[in-house]
């Protein structure tokens, strides 16, 4: 599981979100953006905290820190820009991280729970969850719908 020289080894970007480290497949990551301005405007989409502008494109920011760590996001943060998929289409999506990121090659074992974790890898003696960004944001959306539905029925 921790070897880096097997046929199944893939590249992952390790990021710090709150007080925990997570991995994302490097193939899904575009860049680590500096702490640029976060633009806010009224909306009621779950998890979306605003928009950053990168290379002339408007990139939505998903605040996943409370969901993953149970704590609020730190204020001064970098943004990891990855791809979010919508069927055959995709768009850039950013998540706030702190500045420490690392590119590693590792094997990940598949896991099925929670649904937004696609695997787990070992690095430096630490077990790190591999995030599935599409499932992560969909998970929060489903949760919000579930709560609203329950409130309506109560």
């Amino acid at each position, binding site marked *: 599981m921790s070897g880096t020289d097997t046929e199944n080894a893939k590249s992952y970007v390790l990021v710090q979100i709150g007080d925990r480290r997570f991995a994302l497949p490097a193939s899904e990551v575009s860049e680590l953006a500096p702490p640029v*301005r976060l*633009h806010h*405007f*009224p*909306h*009621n*989409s779950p998890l*979306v905290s605003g*928009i950053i*502008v990168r290379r002339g494109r*408007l*990139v*939505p920011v*998903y605040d996943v820190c409370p969901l993953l760590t149970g704590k609020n996001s730190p204020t001064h943060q970098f943004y990891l820009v990855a791809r*979010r998929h*919508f069927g055959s*289409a995709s*768009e850039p*999506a950013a998540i706030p991280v702190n500045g420490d990121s690392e590119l590693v090659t590792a094997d990940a074992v598949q896991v099925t729970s929670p649904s937004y974790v696609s695997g787990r890898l070992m690095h430096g003696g630490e077990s790190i969850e591999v995030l599935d960004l599409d499932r992560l*944001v969909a998970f929060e*959306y489903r949760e919000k719908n579930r709560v609203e539905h329950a409130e309506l029925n109560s």
Partner: protein
Amino acid sequence: MKIAAQDAVKARKARKPEAVILFNVSNQLFAIAADSVQEIRSTDSLGAALEIEQQEIPKVRHTIERGHRTYYVVNACAHFGLRVVRPTLVLMLRQIRVAVLVDKIERMAEISGLHALPRAFVGAERQWYRGLAYLEDQVIPVVSPLGFLTSQEFERLDGATAEASRHDLERAVQI
């Protein structure tokens, strides 16, 4: 890669400049196409606004009669879920029977094109906004005039207004 880059350049060139009015609601900046606004008035000049009795659509409390048409006055703070402040201006929209209460007009501006609202946004904002403008280092939502009231809301308001008129007529006959 080269073809995609060329397409992006063409797409940027194809964007038409558009005149917009930048306005403020509860310290939040919005834009609206200038040609969708017929008139901007002070709320002080709306003495003839009629209060309507209905609770279903709380963002609408008044109507204005203009040119034999009944305009529904939408409080933009309530519409966008912002802290309600006392509005000072009303935007009378063109081609739709809506007047919008806002705090102040910032200025006119020209935007070089609209960015589509990212798919990350899945709520009512998809009806509220035509897209986003990036102007002088600011991302500004460009509101959709058609997003202030749905056709179902118009029907309900028309029903409430007709009912109120009928009551007024009955009272007048009794007097």
